[in-house]
């Protein structure tokens, strides 16, 4: 039967921006390309905060690869970018548009269902010309190995497929990158968790409240004391007729504080600034979540093994440049470079050299330098020790520190807008929590507005999501049900909470022979497939079968 296996020159796994860029580049180089996407439609499994960049220094951008992208598949360009330092109801706002504009050809707010499904249509047309095409509802579960070599992929819905090139563009929870030993799910320090609510707001209300025209859009970031000391921040991005409102936190900090992600999101949703924007228009339509790799720590310097090349989140290519997060643009560049590398290798009659060529291109095109900046390695070695953080916090909150902040005043805005400084900020509570809080306390102004709404309950948020549950075939298994091994998931899972029975994870007290023990139990029905529990609990984690599980309408 094995002689009957299908063969394609290239199989691209995942139809997000990285996979789309890879497939389009391969197809334009006449490489027979098959794209496999596990969602019912491209974008139905994908979530992002919502800003996509085209960098001036990047060799490939979405609009290069897919002409008409901005007009057809994006929401609004980002024309103004603000950072709000928050202490209670005091807010000091910095305009960091200059930082945002640095190296930026354009930037757009996007919703992934619209964006990715649009890209997928173009990709299907392009790849069909080569004898391949794009299929949805197919989950690639692993690598096909023959004689110890990677020779293709295995799928739940299809017989094994051989390929000369396999592109792992299967996202942050890439099963292929893990199968190949390129990534793991071990350290919470290496991950951020993002949680987002899309809120419908009429176009004219957005125009009026943000003071923007048709071709304008805003991005707002929030940091300070509104997130219970958890390291991270919030964001609000304007879409055409909705707002993307979300939070991004270091996963280790979420776990350490035993914080509930949905409650931190509620803190943002009910902040006075949000109360002004959402007054009379809080219509939350979708709750979603995703893990974000911290490229400074996990971007793989050589993201390939044999015929397998990993791109985008699957290779940890998600850059947190200070407050600005850039992921999709790097996935696009990496995808196109992977495609280019294979095409060149094939031309030289040495397709096996595609991986090395891809690695070299990532370096020579400056992608790796952005993902793993030199400066950060220096400051993190020094600045991320607890004693240093304590000292920095002590100085900042002292009279001396406060006077310095007052003296700096609006010059701080300039410092915050420095691209170099933003790359080397250490990952401690100082820049995320202490510094913005002190800035707001010393320089901020009071904003008083009370929300006329209550954020949706977690139960309603789960209830609003669309699921096609694979009954009797859960995609996650809990290996260790002890509270010590897996208890952190109860709070950290964005669709679970302590004292909430309707989520994925819950703690139960079991009595046996007069003996009491706390055990963790799991019901994968409400799962949003973010991957948090794979890192913070002891699980056997797989994606659901093709077309099954959660289906995001906004993303």
């Amino acid at each position, binding site marked *: 039967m094995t002689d009957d296996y*299908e063969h*394609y020159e290239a199989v691209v796994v995942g139809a997000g921006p990285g996979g789309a860029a890879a497939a389009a580049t391969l197809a334009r180089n006449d490489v027979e390309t*098959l794209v*496999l996407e596990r969602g019912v439609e491209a974008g139905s499994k994908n979530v992002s905060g919502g800003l996509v960049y085209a960098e001036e220094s990047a060799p490939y951008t979405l609009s290069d690869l897919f002409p008409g992208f901005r007009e057809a598949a994006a929401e609004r360009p980002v024309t103004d970018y603000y950072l709000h330092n928050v202490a209670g109801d005091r807010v000091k706002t910095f305009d960091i548009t200059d930082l945002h504009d640095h190296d930026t050809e354009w930037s757009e707010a996007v919703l992934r269902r619209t964006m990715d499904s649009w890209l997928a249509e173009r990709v299907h047309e392009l790849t*069909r010309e080569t004898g*391949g*095409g794009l*299929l949805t509802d*197919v989950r690639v579960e692993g690598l096909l190995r023959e004689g110890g070599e990677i020779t293709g992929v295995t799928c739940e*819905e*299809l*017989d094994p*497929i051989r390929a000369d090139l396999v592109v792992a563009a299967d996202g942050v929870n890439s099963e292929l990158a893990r199968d190949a030993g390129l990534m793991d799910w071990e350290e919470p320090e290496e991950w951020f968790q993002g949680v987002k609510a899309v809120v419908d707001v009429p176009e004219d209300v957005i125009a009026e409240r943000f003071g923007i025209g048709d071709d304008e859009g805003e991005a707002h970031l929030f940091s300070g004391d509104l997130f219970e000391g958890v390291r991270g921040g919030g964001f609000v991005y304007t879409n055409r007729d909705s707002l993307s409102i979300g939070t991004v936190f270091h996963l280790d900090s979420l776990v350490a504080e035993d914080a509930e992600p949905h409650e931190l999101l509620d803190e943002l949703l009910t902040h006075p600034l949000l109360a002004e924007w959402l007054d009379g228009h809080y219509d939350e339509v979708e709750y979603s979540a995703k893990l974000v790799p911290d490229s400074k720590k996990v971007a793989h310097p050589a993201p390939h093994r044999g015929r397998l090349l990993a791109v985008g989140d699957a290779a940890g290519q998600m850059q947190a440049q200070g407050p600005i997060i850039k992921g999709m643009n790097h996935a696009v560049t990496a995808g196109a470079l992977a495609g280019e590398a294979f095409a060149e290798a094939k031309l030289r009659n040495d397709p096996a050299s595609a991986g090395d060529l891809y690695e070299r291109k990532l370096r020579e095109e400056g992608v790796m330098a952005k993902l793993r900046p030199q400066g950060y390695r220096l400051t993190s070695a020094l600045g991320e020790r607890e004693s240093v953080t304590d000292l920095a916090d002590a100085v900042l909150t002292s009279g001396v520190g406060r006077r310095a902040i007052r003296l700096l005043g609006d010059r701080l805005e300039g410092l915050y807008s420095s691209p170099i400084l933003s790359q080397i900020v250490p990952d401690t509570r100082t820049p995320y929590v202490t510094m913005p809080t002190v800035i707001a306390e010393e320089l901020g102004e009071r904003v008083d507005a009370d929300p006329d709404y209550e954020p949706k309950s977690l139960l309603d948020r789960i209830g609003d999501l669309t699921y096609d549950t694979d009954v009797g075939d859960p995609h996650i298994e809990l290996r260790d049900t002890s509270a010590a091994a897996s208890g952190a998931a109860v709070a950290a899972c964005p669709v679970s909470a302590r004292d909430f029975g309707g989520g994925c994870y819950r703690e139960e007290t079991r009595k046996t022979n007069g003996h009491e023990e706390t055990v963790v139990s799991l019901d994968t029905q409400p799962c949003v497939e973010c991957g948090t529990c794979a890192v913070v609990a002891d699980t056997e984690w797989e994606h659901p079968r093709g077309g099954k599980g959660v289906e995001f309408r906004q993303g």
Partner: protein
Amino acid sequence: MHSVVLTKGVPDFREGQVSFDEDGHLERGATPTVMNPNDEFALEAALQTKVKRGGRVSVMSMGPPGYESVLEEAMSVYADDLYLLSDREMAAADTWSTAITLSAGIEKIGAADEQGSSSPAEESEEPDLVFAGFKTADGETGQTGPQTAWCLDRSIVTHVVALDVEEDEGRLRAKRLVEGDPDEIETVETSLPAFVVTDPEFEASYRRAEHRLRHKELRAETEERVENYEDHLTTWSAEELDLDPDFIGLDGSPTIVSGVDPIPKAPSEREATAVDPDDPEELHAVLETMRPLAGGD
């Protein structure tokens, strides 16, 4: 490979669509006509054959001109061309005279192919496969398929849940439910041409990417085609089919319906007695009540 799928228009029995009068009789005028739901499986089976073996799928129905919409619905699943056998003489047919009419239509498609085909070698004189769904939602007899197969003098496989056609060898291999039992499946083979009745348990299987890509392409094509489905529709009268009016429609139907009795509705309320599970006497009383119903003793 040429397949013909037989379909029938039936009242839409779904809640909110169907209307009954006070006596429980179907109000035909107030109930929309739709494609018989079981026929979708026959269409999927024919589409699978086309995806894997190429060729053409024709869909045929017998009924009044209004049945064009049923054929349109069939085309939205998949069809290359549509045939409606429509004539006053065909009206009020039972399964037997329907089978005679349909078999004449299927034979005429074959003959038309022979005449119309520029390269005769490409088209066989009769369709290789005829597909039908498992019984209609209105008549529920399940007879029309087998009777049509008998008229055509071809072998028939019923209750088919999976299908593979080996065109080179002129054979068909099918998995079928034995006597309609989903737990008992047998594999049978027969030679082409053949007649296939799909079971509602039928599932098309596409384990190769090339087949899924072809499936996607064919589905897109049929969606485009369905917008002008009339352009792909051929209507044949009894005369065009060269059918003797005495053998079709009401005159050709040996079935006599002597009467129709509504099935009495189950009572909407039942008596219930609550029993305290902790009270042994009450439980004993329950057991005593049930004893005569248990049989044996």
